[in-house]
């Protein structure tokens, strides 16, 4: 598998031009396309990009958030109120394959027909918090609110906590990946038909589409007998199936599960003479399935309590049991598996480079684009467009 290419034409999206007009709701989509080798221009106003105010920051005050999500971009300053800028934007649009936007072109009064008149092959992806004509179209929805309305918060947390947001901007990482899919699907379609397309995305709908069991239980409550009506209230780490849970061990926590082979798990407990009544024939009665699973999980929780978390994680995995060690960021940063895969990348910042996440996928013949560009904006947009060959 190829990690980095030595020639720019070996990126999967070499030669593809993307205009990134996105805020936090879709910037991750533009990043995915940029890291796949597309030439991506990001527009910043003369007053600065508000996303540069997102923490964390490095010791020079540079936003690490922005540095990561705006990687591999050519950042150009264009003031939206400037007449010359409007002309330059139209010039860019003529050479653009994919636009990733969060409403900025629409706010400038541009429709798909306007875009099409400039560029008959363009793919325009527009991400909004909600549908454009729905009752919540004007609602403000930062990540916490998006996750609350989208159903993620109700399902996350414990019986003794409030509903919880997911760490970071996960709501917008979901809409962001969907934006990348939309851009790539539109690009593929345009390559075959030569036609322009607009794809609208509601962050709200993207979150609802990624809730695993939540819609299933709402529609098939009889399938999960222990649900409260058609809702399974939040329950800490206990999986909806009752068969996965994080438990406290010595020197850390472990996610334990008897799946996928319950008999194999019982055999392991039996090796240590800890299987108690799990081999009792009464559990052959399928109506006692959930009683049996609860009994097994209780025994496993007691069993793990005195084990060293990391040592036992590796022992379980050596037996092909899918246990998981609960890892913290500092432990991940030193993780031998990621290190051995040369996974981390160097990100350029004003003071040098810092390590950061690499790519979640590798291609046998193409490669991922390392984050070589700084996020310093360019004043001379015409020169940059000329340098990157963005003319049409």
């Amino acid at each position, binding site marked *: 598998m190829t990690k980095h290419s030595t020639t720019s034409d070996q990126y999967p999206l070499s030669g593809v031009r993307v205009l990134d007009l996105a805020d936090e709701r879709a910037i991750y989509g533009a990043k995915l396309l940029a890291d796949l080798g597309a030439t991506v221009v990001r527009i910043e106003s003369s007053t600065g990009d508000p996303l540069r105010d997102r923490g964390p920051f490095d010791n020079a005050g540079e936003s690490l958030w922005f540095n990561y999500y705006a990687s591999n971009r050519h950042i150009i300053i264009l003031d939206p109120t400037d007449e010359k800028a409007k002309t330059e934007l139209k010039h860019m649009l003529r050479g653009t394959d994919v636009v990733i936007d969060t409403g900025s072109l629409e706010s400038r009064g541009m429709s798909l027909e306007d875009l099409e008149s400039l560029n008959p092959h363009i793919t325009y992806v527009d991400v909004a918090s909600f549908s454009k004509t729905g009752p919540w179209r004007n609602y403000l929805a930062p990540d916490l609110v998006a996750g609350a309305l989208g159903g993620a918060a109700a399902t996350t947390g414990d019986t003794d906590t409030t*509903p919880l947001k997911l760490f970071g901007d996960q709501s917008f990482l979901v809409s962001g990946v969907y934006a990348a*899919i939309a851009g790539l*699907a539109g690009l593929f379609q345009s390559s075959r038909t030569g036609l322009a397309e607009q794809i609208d995305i509601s962050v709200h709908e993207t979150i609802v589409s990624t*809730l695993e069991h*939540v819609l299933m239980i709402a529609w098939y409550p009889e399938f999960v007998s222990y649900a409260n009506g058609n809702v399974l209230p939040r329950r800490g780490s206990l999986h909806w199936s009752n068969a996965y849970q994080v438990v406290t061990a010595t020197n850390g926590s472990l996610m334990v599960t008897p799946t996928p082979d319950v008999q194999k798990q019982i055999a392991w407990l039996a090796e240590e003479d800890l299987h108690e009544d799990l081999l009792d024939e009464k559990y052959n009665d399928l109506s006692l399935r959930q009683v049996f699973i609860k009994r097994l999980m209780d025994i496993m929780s007691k069993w793990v309590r005195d084990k060293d978390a990391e040592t036992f994680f590796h022992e379980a*995995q050596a037996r092909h049991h899918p246990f998981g060690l609960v890892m913290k960021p500092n432990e991940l940063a030193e993780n031998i598996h990621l290190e051995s895969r040369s996974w981390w990348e160097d990100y350029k910042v004003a003071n040098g480079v810092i*390590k950061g996440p690499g790519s979640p996928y590798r291609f046998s*013949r193409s490669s991922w684009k390392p984050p070589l560009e700084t996020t310093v904006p360019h004043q001379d947009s015409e020169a940059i467009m000329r340098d990157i060959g963005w003319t049409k």
Partner: protein
Amino acid sequence: MTGPLDGIKVLDFTHVLAGPFSTRIMGDLGADVVKIMSEARHGPDGGTGSPYHVMWNRNKRILQLDMTQTEGKELARELCNQADIVIDNFSVGVLDRWGIGYDTIKKENPAVIYIQMSGMGDEGPWSSYVSFAPTVHALSGLTYLTGVPGREDIGIGFSYNDHQSGLHGTVAILAALNERLKSQKGQRIELSQFEVGVTLNAVALLDYFANGNTVSPSGNQLPFDSAQPHNCYPTAGEDSWVAIALQTDEQWNMLVKLMDSPEWALKSGLESVDGRIAQLEAIDSEISEWTKHQNGKELMEMLQEHGIPAGYVQNGNDLVNNDPELQASGFFFDYQETHPLLGKIRGDRLPLRFKRQNVSSYNRPEIFGESNHKVLKDWLGLSQSEVERLEHIGTVK
């Protein structure tokens, strides 16, 4: 079927959620997805009559093959030779043992895009480690980081990383498909679900590498940005909450006004976000007193009308039965055809709204072997009598 992927053939060797979610999206986009299944070994998602399976396997045709038979493996190899995309999220090595690993397939089908969505990736000391989504959540930091201070045993309440792996896998496939238009060549893609999960925590890792900080779980507070109030607050009714997420001091001033300017909110210092963060617990307690007897939905509407970001905490029942936004956008739909085992079933649309292309065709999830004849005719040109012979010897079921 219509859509951007019209004419693209996807051969689906996936189970549970991550892989099926990716192929569901490709099917929704118009690809001809053929899912290889076996009733005898259907895996943990419970078979074609299981609601879990039904959720993630629409717009696919199911071919039931006995992969323990030589003829079953040979049919699978012939199907691979016809495929534009082969997708696999079984354990590493399963398809190789069936004789349809990438190195074999590419000899006869060099244009194939072949993705292996494994837990930990091809190489590395943990590459043989087995995982489901809760495993990956634990290992990737998602469990640790989503929780409240002092606890590391909460995490995300659904298999989020499976969805994200399916989404990221789809991105990689579509990138390779676009690349193939130019090169006319296929390639193999290796996706590590663990690395997807770690990527989702990027900012926590950058903070560690740049500053040596290990961020801790912080409930609904933002660990890196200044915002307060920023939490879920109780409202009238059982387990009823409203999320309020202020972003500016102006929003705070408006909130104070809407609360009828109580004395506690007018204290010096609270006009700035830093001052409010210093009084976080006291403010949250006061706001909870204000919200707890109010109707959550009405409170959300009132706050939003005044420019304050607020959202009722919706559960699954709220989403499918009471969400006016989803009702207006027609997000949920009834499948036209009833399911042979479950009867009338509902679905959620692909959340990509194409303005020109008609991408709104949803075929109900199939049951075991439902498309045996059609798939083998369409993909391999087998006659009815040939398929009947294969059914007779149990290769096709």
